[in-house]
């Protein structure tokens, strides 16, 4: 899947609350502040979904998450038009094949 598609889509989610699960199993919920082409993510107003395991994270307000350590991004269901995304992904894959 082309990373470009994700970047554009995440950009459209700025201001929404998402949950990011890192590859070390830490889950962070926060308001998406910004994202860049490498899918590095900036959050504001974060909360940690596993405070027992990572108590120190509770004190953090803003954070920058390196894109390469993200395992999943959980999206608000009502913000996600899956049909639109599927169509866009299909078109992009088709165009990539023709290159």
């Amino acid at each position, binding site marked *: 899947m*082309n*990373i*470009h*598609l994700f*970047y*554009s*889509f995440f*950009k*459209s*989610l*700025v*201001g*929404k609350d998402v949950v990011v699960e*890192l*590859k*070390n199993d*830490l889950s962070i919920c926060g308001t*998406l*502040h*910004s*994202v*860049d*082409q*490498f*899918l*590095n993510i*900036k959050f504001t107003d*974060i909360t940690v979904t596993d405070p027992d395991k990572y*108590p*120190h*994270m*509770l*004190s*953090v*307000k*803003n*954070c*920058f*998450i*390196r*894109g*390469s*350590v993200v395992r999943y991004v959980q999206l608000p269901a009502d*913000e996600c*038009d899956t049909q*639109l995304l599927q*169509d*866009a992904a299909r*078109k*992009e894959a088709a*165009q*990539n094949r*023709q*290159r």
Partner: protein
Amino acid sequence: MPCVLTEEANRKMLLTALDVPTEGVRHVQDETVAYVEDDSQGNGSLYITDNVVTWRNSSGQGFSLQYPSISLHAVSRDLNAFPHECLFLMVDGKLSDDADPRQKSSDDEDEVVGPFEGDTATTEVRFVPADKGALDAMFNSMSDCQALHPDEQDTDSEADDFEANYYEGMEGEDNLTPEGQRTLEHLENLLLNGQGQGDGQNRPNAGNEENTNQMDEDQFADADEMQ
């Protein structure tokens, strides 16, 4: 199997002799105390450079962090969780070479292994500057430098040309919520027609047209004519 280490002995292994960084220095913060997993390393200077994050005390001892190993960084202001306002870093792997008996890491070095792959440990590092007002600048400098070190394995070679002409830097500083729908529409048009509708945030049209022409030609060219 090493015995349980005294705090000072642990600190000695952690720190090595380092020179003051001179290249690509974005931010220098003197009078900064470094904490590694709650152990204070004493007072020193923090250097945020394009290539590496280095902390070094006045004796020339310190440690360096590679950006790919910095999974997350943040400004921490809640004094309940940690008694000082600080720049908090979650670092992939251990800083010292010696294996902590508590950890079960399969490899000594984390540089060849991807972030959090295998049984690599996580280290919490904090930089506490005497000047708490500098924390935002430290955070921003570190964010800027992180963007200079994307993972090679994440790069989609097909997307390189595609990305370069469209976006650069962090998007989203100004709340884009009202434009969320427009962005999606732009994306849809982009993939439908091969050219964006432009929401004012994109690169100049030169970039769009360049790619558009290329894609159109490929789409309609006969198989025989394609290179």
